[in-house]
Structures are given as C-alpha cells and as structure tokens.
C-alpha cells in the first residue's frame, strides 16, 4: 500500500509530460497598421517617371491603361503650369478581385457598388503633389 502513492505520482508525471505542448497566448493589444498589413498581400501602385512633351504626352501602363496629358494639362499647388519630369503612380485595382481589399469600401449610401473598373492615380513632381487641370485616363 505504501508504494501505491509514489507509483501513482510517477504515472501522473509521465502522462503530464507526454501531453506537453506550447500554448500561444497572443498580445491582445497588438494593433495592425491596415495599409502596411495589406501591402504584404497586394502590390502598391506602379510608379512611372515621365517627361512632359511640348505637345500631348501619352503613357501606356503595364496594366493596359493609357494616361493622356494635353500640353499644359498639369498645375502645381500654386496654380502654375508644370513642366519637365513628373511621377505618375497608378494601379488598376479591378483586374483581380483580391486587389479590391486595398481599395476604398465599395459602398455608397449603404448601397453596394458593383465595380466594373477601379483605379488609383497620383501625380507628383519632386515629391510635391501636382494636380490635373486637363488629363484623361483610358481603362
């Protein structure tokens, strides 16, 4: 009888060791940055450096969109016409469904928006945002 308890303890110890496993307890305050998080899955817009022509400037993107910039079609933040090299960041978000995860919510006044085409475009020169006075995009 005096050996039963020690033997039982050994069995319990063995069983508990056998079921040894790590338990992951997440930090409940860990907060993700949505845009940084989504950038792991969805590529950012593509950048194009473009020299504005004296006439019309045409940029044909790798995603088969065309940007048409008429002469003097862009202005800076002071309202002056932009000349020289500019940067166009552009992406077609509608060619693959999962790209839309990184787009604005497709809801307007609670109505679901069924998207045929969705794109993002941003224009800058030397790091400063510039604006379209007269610019067309074909998609």
């Amino acid at each position: 009888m005096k050996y039963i308890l020690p033997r039982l303890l050994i069995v319990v110890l063995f069983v508990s060791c056998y079921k040894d496993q790590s338990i992951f307890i997440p930090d409940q305050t860990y907060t993700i940055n949505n845009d940084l998080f989504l950038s792991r899955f969805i590529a950012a817009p593509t950048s194009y450096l473009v020299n504005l022509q004296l006439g019309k400037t045409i940029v044909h993107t790798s995603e088969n969109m065309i940007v048409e910039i008429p002469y003097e079609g862009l202005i800076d933040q002071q309202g002056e016409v932009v000349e020289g090299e500019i940067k166009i960041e552009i992406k077609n978000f509608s060619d693959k469904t999962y790209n839309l995860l990184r787009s604005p919510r497709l809801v307007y006044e609670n109505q679901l928006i069924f998207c045929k085409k969705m794109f993002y475009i941003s224009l800058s020169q030397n790091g400063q945002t510039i604006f379209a006075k007269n610019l067309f995009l074909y998609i």
Partner: protein
Amino acid sequence: MKDVNENTNGNSQLFSSSDITNNTNWHTENNDNFEIKAQNWSISNAESVISFYGYKISIGDNNNWYCISDKLSGESPKNQQISVSFDAIINHHNTIAYFVSDHYNTVVKLEDNDKNRRFNLTFASLKEPISGKIILLSQLGDEIYHFGMTNVVLGKDETINVKSEPKDIKDIKAILTSL
C-alpha cells in the same frame, strides 16, 4: 465577373474619391445627362496613334480613386445587416474583415463593433441575395498570421461565425489570389 466587354453600356456610373478611410466619401455624378460608356477611342500625339476600347475618364478635383460601376438605383430602401462573430484569440485591433462577392466584382470591408465583439455590414436591401465569402485577416504578432473564411449569402444570412486558424503568409496570399 462582369467585364467592360459585356453589353452594359448606358448603365454605368462613375464614383471618385480622394481618400481611403473607413468612411470613404465617394462622389458621383447623378446628372442623367452625364453618361459614361465603353467605346473605341483613338489616342494620338506626334509620335504614335493608339486604338483603345474601354472607358475614358476625365481626371480632376484632386481625386485619387475612381470607380466605374453598374448604375445604382438611387432609391433608399430598407437596410439589412449581417453580423459576424469570431474566435476569442482575435479582436478588432489585429483583424480586418471583408465580404467578397462570388459573382460580382465587389469587396466591402466590414465595420467594427467592439462592444459585442462583432464585425458588421449594413447594406441597402438587395434585389436578390448575393453569395460570397466572409474573410478574416489577422496578424497576432511578428510573422504570426491567422486566416478565416466562410461562405455567406447577403440578403439571407443575418449572423455567421467565422473560425480562424494559423496560416503561413504564402498560403494566405495563395487563397486571396484565387478569389
């Protein structure tokens, strides 16, 4: 998925926005005289001529985001809602939830409801139910990802539970790519 080459001309609407916050303020042209349609275009400068079939959009007003969609009804019908519950291991800080339609090109980020641990989507009543998936993307720490996905029918289901499990980022990307 609906495509520009389908015969949906005359039934399109243009939305534009300058931001991408949770409450994106889409602007749209509600004027019946404003028409946007796909057609053949000839684009030329001194160096080249390009023929292109698609939509031509005038860019302006400091907007960065543009969306061409089926024309909305303009009515204000009754709202419906779907409420999504989830595992205790994830929360609103480490998770983003979406509805992804199976047959339409639409994806909607769900809204947080921190009080009752739910993600919600409120939407105007649909002409017919829309099948799709609820997706939960979670990051619980450095390189620790969880993923959950469950079928759902908007306009029919009102509450749904989505189970999440640990997944490698490559596996998550593969699933998203297949949507």
